[in-house]
């Protein structure tokens, strides 16, 4: 249900992009959402339909691609997806360094639009 706020921004952005390419109709909107965003495609579609009604993006299909949380170890540069439940998620699984940096999992991007 929390999708309402961000979906309003998604619809505004899509309509803006449609104007730039002079689209008559937006057919698909491909989104990339980090796992931490907890976006449900069904709810994004539900709110998108409401916010896009009467615009070029009306009836567009939302395609949501979820990206995992990924950390990069700052000692050995290993990439890993932390499992917060295992008790060792703050350490690099390869070298056990606690010097890590999160590099994905919170993004919210319109990847591409399919239009006519």
């Amino acid at each position, binding site marked *: 249900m929390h999708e309402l706020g961000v979906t309003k921004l998604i619809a505004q952005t899509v309509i803006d992009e449609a104007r730039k390419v002079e689209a008559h109709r937006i057919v698909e909107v491909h989104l990339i959402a980090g796992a*931490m965003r907890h976006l449900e495609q069904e709810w994004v579609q539900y709110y998108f339909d409401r916010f896009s009604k009467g615009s070029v993006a009306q009836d567009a299909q939302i395609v949501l691609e979820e990206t995992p949380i990924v950390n990069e170890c700052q000692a050995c540069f290993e990439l890993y997806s932390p499992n917060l439940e295992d008790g060792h*998620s703050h350490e690099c699984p390869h070298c056990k360094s606690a010097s*890590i940096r999160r590099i994905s999992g919170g993004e919210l991007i319109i990847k591409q639009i*399919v239009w006519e």
Partner: protein
Amino acid sequence: MNVTQVRRDILQDNKAQAQNIRNLLAKNGVTMINVMASPGAGKTSSILRIIETMPKDCSIAVIEADIDSMVDSIKVKDAGAVAVQINTGGSCHLEIPMLEPALDLIDLRSTDLIIVENIGNLVCTAEFDIGADANVMLLSVPEGDDKILKYPLMFSICDALVISKTDYLALPSNDFDPQRLTQRLAALNPEAQVFSTSAYENQGFEALCGYIRGIIAAKAPACNNR
């Protein structure tokens, strides 16, 4: 059919608005912190303790955001701070267009610190940058140390995590493990600073206010000796 690669951050307009707020605050030498938590985690009680603990010559204004009611702003006024109430009328989080009219009511030139008490919510409040210098999240002991598994975004965007209501740690029914929480936090947000407070016992606010004073000092060197 045509395919256009957009690669556009949905929150870029929000980020631009937030930067405008940061510029406005920087111009006036004001620090703003965004306090976020669940309903009942102790946001208002903690803010009252912060007002009490900060040096008396630090001029504080509090923006209270609630879906309805004035109860929190009345408490803040009684504590001696400037209070501005925003009733969001159903919106579960604060956005910059709601915040701007409240900032207009505050004399920024004579204010050192603005504390925004965001709406009690661990989901939507994390999604919108309001232009604060620091996001301060409260997690109360009775809520449990596992909340980071359910609301990772909030824990990932906070600059400081305050474990509140630590007086509950002494109860026989307690199963909150601060170490388990901080280890999980380190996996998502290694830069976040962690504080422990009890508004009931008035514990931990010197350290939290030291952190806030550090932000003020970095931003407005004239206040450094406060």
